[in-house]
């Protein structure tokens, strides 16, 4: 599928670029440092292929930035890569400020108590409803930014997220196999 191949190429390019940027910013000495670098760059790369058009990709970027404020430089460069740096600088700075503010808001919002409505009737339909509600809750915890979505949008985002995850896994797997060939 042509679309899928292009997506994989875009992901790979951004991932390798992200790795370089990350290593310029942070020292990677131990294996766990390297793993963190690889995983983080991969996550940023796959999220950036969506160009902030989906909620999960935005939420993922927010999460990356909130983990470590220095990561914002990585996010900026991957999101705005390949274009005139001076022209986009102010745009990126406002964008990154927005991301920082949003991640702060997210942290505040998480502290609000979650409202739960317990059905009183014990019919089979309510059992089915409860089952779906429980599964939906689990799904919300798995998809980035899922907590704020309703059932309809959640499923749409999940579809896109699964496709992107598969691209990420496929490229990483091929890279691992290829690298294994270099290291007998």
């Amino acid at each position, binding site marked *: 599928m042509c679309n899928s191949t292009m997506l994989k190429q875009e992901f790979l390019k951004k991932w390798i670029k992200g790795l370089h940027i990350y290593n310029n910013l942070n020292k990677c000495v131990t294996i766990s440092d390297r793993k963190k670098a690889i995983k983080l760059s991969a996550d940023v790369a796959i999220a950036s292929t969506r160009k902030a058009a989906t909620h999960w990709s935005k939420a993922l970027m927010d999460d990356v930035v909130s983990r470590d404020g220095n990561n914002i430089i990585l996010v900026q460069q991957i999101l705005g890569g390949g274009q005139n740096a001076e022209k986009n600088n102010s745009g990126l700075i406002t964008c990154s400020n927005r991301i920082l503010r949003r991640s702060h808001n997210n942290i505040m919002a998480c502290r609000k108590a979650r409202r739960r409505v317990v059905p009183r009737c014990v019919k089979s339909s309510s059992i089915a409803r409860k089952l779906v509600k429980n*599964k939906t809750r689990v799904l919300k915890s798995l998809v980035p930014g899922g907590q704020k979505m309703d059932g309809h949008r959640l499923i749409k985002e999940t579809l896109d997220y699964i496709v992107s995850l598969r691209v990420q896994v496929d490229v990483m797997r091929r890279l691992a196999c290829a690298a294994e060939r270099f290291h007998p």
Partner: protein
Amino acid sequence: MPKGTFITLIGIRVSKNHRERKKSFESTKNVTMSSRRSRSRQSPGASRISDDQIADLVSRLQQLIPEMRNRRSDKVSASKVLQETCNYIRSLHREVDDLSDRLSELLESTDSDSAQAAIIRSLLM
């Protein structure tokens, strides 16, 4: 979207043949404790998103998940699809983690490997 409302999917049955699709879909809007309404089962505002759309999304989800692709002839409940989706996402997360482990051992240094990265890139494209 007002806070505290969500649309719950109930018992959606999805079959391969869309003509025979039975729509036993009911949507309930739950509001916050502070402004609780009486439990009305059919909210007119919820028809914004049609049964068809949601059933279509659920069937697309089903097609994405490897284990469920062969079960299209049976009627599958939304709960099962959601369960399998969660399992699948979790397994994908685990794979990403494992692959990151493998790669961190294989790539001796992730910074000065421009030559190695270029070779690998040319292999993969």
